[in-house]
């Protein structure tokens, strides 16, 4: 029988979520629980002179830096964020201490009476100031070819600059975490993407032996990167409080606290310098990527890497010079957000090509297509494109389905159409997958197979996809495949649930293991098989010089967006989105379409209505009343289709998918707006106010 992995099945977790029986962390109950409330810095940069506490009633506690059993730093790529502030604070919202106790009303009355005296210091607020003062956290550089020589010899240069704003994740379930000691073992439960990141952070901070820490992921109500590194911080908070009080501790953020202090998409500035050959082909690119990392570097170096490796987009540019810098500002730390730096640079390169084509008076899509990468071409880091690049087929499909050229001709003023071409590197950047060295286990007990992974279901459909891969490989009903509880005490570290890696990398391991299990299917005794990820041997990566294959393979896509702009209010209405993707082979057509539509909606939000601005280090948006995300009225019908291109190391041929839609759609929207007004769009989000200024002559 021919396997058809893409045929849609019902999601395994939908009924309990529809009827409200699914228990998220805020729905959990613990006996003798104490609640924790965080006291945060109200100033952007200061020395803490004194903290005056009111009388603390019996049964209530203050938990601060002095209670940290181990290291007072949250472990991540750069472990620079103090778990609790020490003598200084670097951003508004930085955690200083917790007030812990059984009654939330009494906690609030204690909180109201705590007085902190600061000696304020000069702070840095914007990327511009940070660049002037060179507050550089990370400075990366790579090049291909001889860009300097080309630029020296080239007479004809174009320079362009693009900027993008913050984006807040707005997972519907705010951050929530709990901790308790059972005898001498610490259990942490919460909404998270990366249980082993949390465990490793706790190892540093709690100074406990490895077998005395267990991290359990609870049903997670959306994450999008916002629950990648951030829960490591809150987990340390509740763990320290549980350690001090010997009570279970719960800490559930409300929306305004969540927005105030959780990570966000990095605001960016991207400068391009372009040199051309005699046929007006792009011959050399100089790219300068600036990210606002906020007060601590944390995960930002990894985000910066993905940003700079995507700087050349889907184009084969012979000579390229890329610099990327993370800047320190006194702002809430930026962090992981779906796309991880790539949405910023893909916006930059797509709009750059659009702007060049408009200047040259040639068709933007035709101009882009003159530069497309194809199989065996070098990547911008000097690696190789190993798969067939199906962009020509993808583009053909998307322009046919959207009637692109006809609309381009017949659109009136205030009606626009735009097209974006994009790619996304699958899995971790560089050596990431070898470092993580993910491990999975499959256990067989009679007819029942249990898969043990640390990959989490957070809404994206991982549980259904991974169970389906195992079930179809073994040719058994999906009901006979159990997704083991994601508890670091029970499952191996298959890596974090990030980087669009779960289906491709973890699913790939599961498929391979299930195939081995199939050969032993008749064994009657219970047995288990474990496997570790091995990076394909033909891939090479030099982490010091950023040269080689930054990713094992790429997923690709093209989006067409149609917009209408109100000539009076300048509000943008998205009329249609046509999206075509190559993600290898879809593991489930409907689930994948849902992922793509959701990612597109987030991308539309970032490109248009999601405004988050900071003034003197204070975010102007503090809740969902002033930070607007798209509603059902803002999102049009989104048409998605897939071009098959099986990847030999992906399960059933699958590649990465989850981040791709958020990477791809913003430049399509921006181009459509530019097309509608015949103006240049170099900044996201495109608010009506800015658009009115642009239309009235910049």
């Amino acid at each position, binding site marked *: 029988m021919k396997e058809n992995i893409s045929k849609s099945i019902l999601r395994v977790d939908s009924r309990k979520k*529809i009827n*409200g029986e699914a228990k998220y962390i*805020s729905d959990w109950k613990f006996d003798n629980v104490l609640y924790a409330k965080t006291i945060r810095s109200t100033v952007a940069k200061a020395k803490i002179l004194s903290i005056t506490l009111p009388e603390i009633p019996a049964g209530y506690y203050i938990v601060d830096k002095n209670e940290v059993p181990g290291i007072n730093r949250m472990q991540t790529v750069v472990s620079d964020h103090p778990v609790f502030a020490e003598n200084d604070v670097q951003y508004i919202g930085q955690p200083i201490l917790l007030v812990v106790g059984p009654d939330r009303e009494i906690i609030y009355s204690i909180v109201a009476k705590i007085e902190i005296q600061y000696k304020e210091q000069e702070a840095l607020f914007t990327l511009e100031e940070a660049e002037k003062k060179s507050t550089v956290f990370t400075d990366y550089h790579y090049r291909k070819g001889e860009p300097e020589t080309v630029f020296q010899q080239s007479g004809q240069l174009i320079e362009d600059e693009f900027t993008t704003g913050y984006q807040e994740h707005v997972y519907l379930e705010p951050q929530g975490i709990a901790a308790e000691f059972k005898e001498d073992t610490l259990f942490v439960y919460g909404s998270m993407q990366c249980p082993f990141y949390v465990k490793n952070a706790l190892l540093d901070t709690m100074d406990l032996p490895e077998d005395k820490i267990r991290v359990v992921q609870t049903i997670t109500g959306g994450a999008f990167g916002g629950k990648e590194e951030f829960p490591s911080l809150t987990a340390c908070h509740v763990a320290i409080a549980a350690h001090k009080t010997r009570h279970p501790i719960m800490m559930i953020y409300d929306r305004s606290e969540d927005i105030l202090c959780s990570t966000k998409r990095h605001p960016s500035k991207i400068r391009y310098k372009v040199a051309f050959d005699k046929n007006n082909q792009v011959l050399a690119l100089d790219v300068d990527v600036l990210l606002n990392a906020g007060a601590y570097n944390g995960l930002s170096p990894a985000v910066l890497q993905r940003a700079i490796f995507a700087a050349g987009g889907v184009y084969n540019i012979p000579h390229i010079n890329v610099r990327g810098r993370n800047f320190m500002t006194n702002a809430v730390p930026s962090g992981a957000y779906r796309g991880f730096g790539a949405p910023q640079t893909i916006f930059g390169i797509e709009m750059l090509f659009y702007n060049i084509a408009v200047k040259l008076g040639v068709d933007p899509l035709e101009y882009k297509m003159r530069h497309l990468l194809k199989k065996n071409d070098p990547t911008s880091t000097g690696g190789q494109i190993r798969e067939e690049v199906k962009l020509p087929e993808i583009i053909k499909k998307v322009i046919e389905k959207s009637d692109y050229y006809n609309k381009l001709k017949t659109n009136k003023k205030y009606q626009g159409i735009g097209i974006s071409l994009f790619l996304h590197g699958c899995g971790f950047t560089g050596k990431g997958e070898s470092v993580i060295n993910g491990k999975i286990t499959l256990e067989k007990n009679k007819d029942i197979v249990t898969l043990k992974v640390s990959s989490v279901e957070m809404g994206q459909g991982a549980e259904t996809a991974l169970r389906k891969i195992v079930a179809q490989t073994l040719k058994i009903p999906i009901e006979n495949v159990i997704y083991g509880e994601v508890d670091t005490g029970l499952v191996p570290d298959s890596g974090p649930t990030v980087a669009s890696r779960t289906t491709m990398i973890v699913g790939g391991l599961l498929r391979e293991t299930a195939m081995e299990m199939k050969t032993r299917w008749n064994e009657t005794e219970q047995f288990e098989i474990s496997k570790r990820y091995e990076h394909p041997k033909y891939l090479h990566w030099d982490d010091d010089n950023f040269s080689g294959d930054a990713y094992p393979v790429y997923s690709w896509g093209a989006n067409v967006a149609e917009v209408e702009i109100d000539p009076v209010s300048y509000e943008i209405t998205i009329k249609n989105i046509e999206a075509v993707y190559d993600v290898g082979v879809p593991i489930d057509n409907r689930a994948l379409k849902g992922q793509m539509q959701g990612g*597109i909606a987030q991308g539309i939000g970032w490109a248009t209505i999601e405004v988050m601005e900071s003034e003197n280090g204070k975010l102007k948006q503090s809740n969902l009343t002033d930070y607007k995300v798209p509603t059902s009225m803002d999102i049009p019908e989104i048409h998605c289709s897939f071009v098959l291109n099986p990847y030999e190391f992906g399960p059933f041929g699958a590649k990465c998918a989850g981040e791709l839609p958020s990477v791809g759609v913003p430049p399509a929207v921006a181009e459509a707006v530019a097309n509608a007004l015949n103006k240049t769009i170099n900044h996201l989000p495109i608010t009506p106010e800015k658009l009115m200024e642009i239309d009235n002559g910049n």
Partner: protein
Amino acid sequence: MVIEFYLNNEKKKIDIDASARLLDVLRENFGLTSVKEGCGEGECGACVVLVNGRAMNTCMIPVASIMGKSIVTMEGYKHTDRYKAIETGFMEAGSVQCGFCTPGFVMATESLLNQNPNPTDDEIKEGLSGNLCRCTGYNMIIQGVRLAIEKGAGLW
């Protein structure tokens, strides 16, 4: 203050601070955790229940104002035929991803169909516009409502 009301068709009486949010009363005093807090400001719809048959945000309702009214949460609603139609529609259309917003969307759907059993697509969009979903991009939720209307023909 003593409040008397109907909760999932049962008469209840509770002595409580009149200004307490209905959201907290339902979750904490009655253990009805299908009612979710997503924003606390009436913007996201995760805490929507039916108040006299109409979808309302419980984070914005002081408990004093429900005196004598009928409150239906998912814990009660899930036993109805209308719920079954919505459940089937949502499952088959792929309306659910992370699920945190889903009970609120079910409530909004019931409220919409109760007032307008045959809504147009625009009316569905408008009827759901008080509920935020960050996962799906709404297309499959709208499709779920359409399917629910089909499955539940004659129920509304």
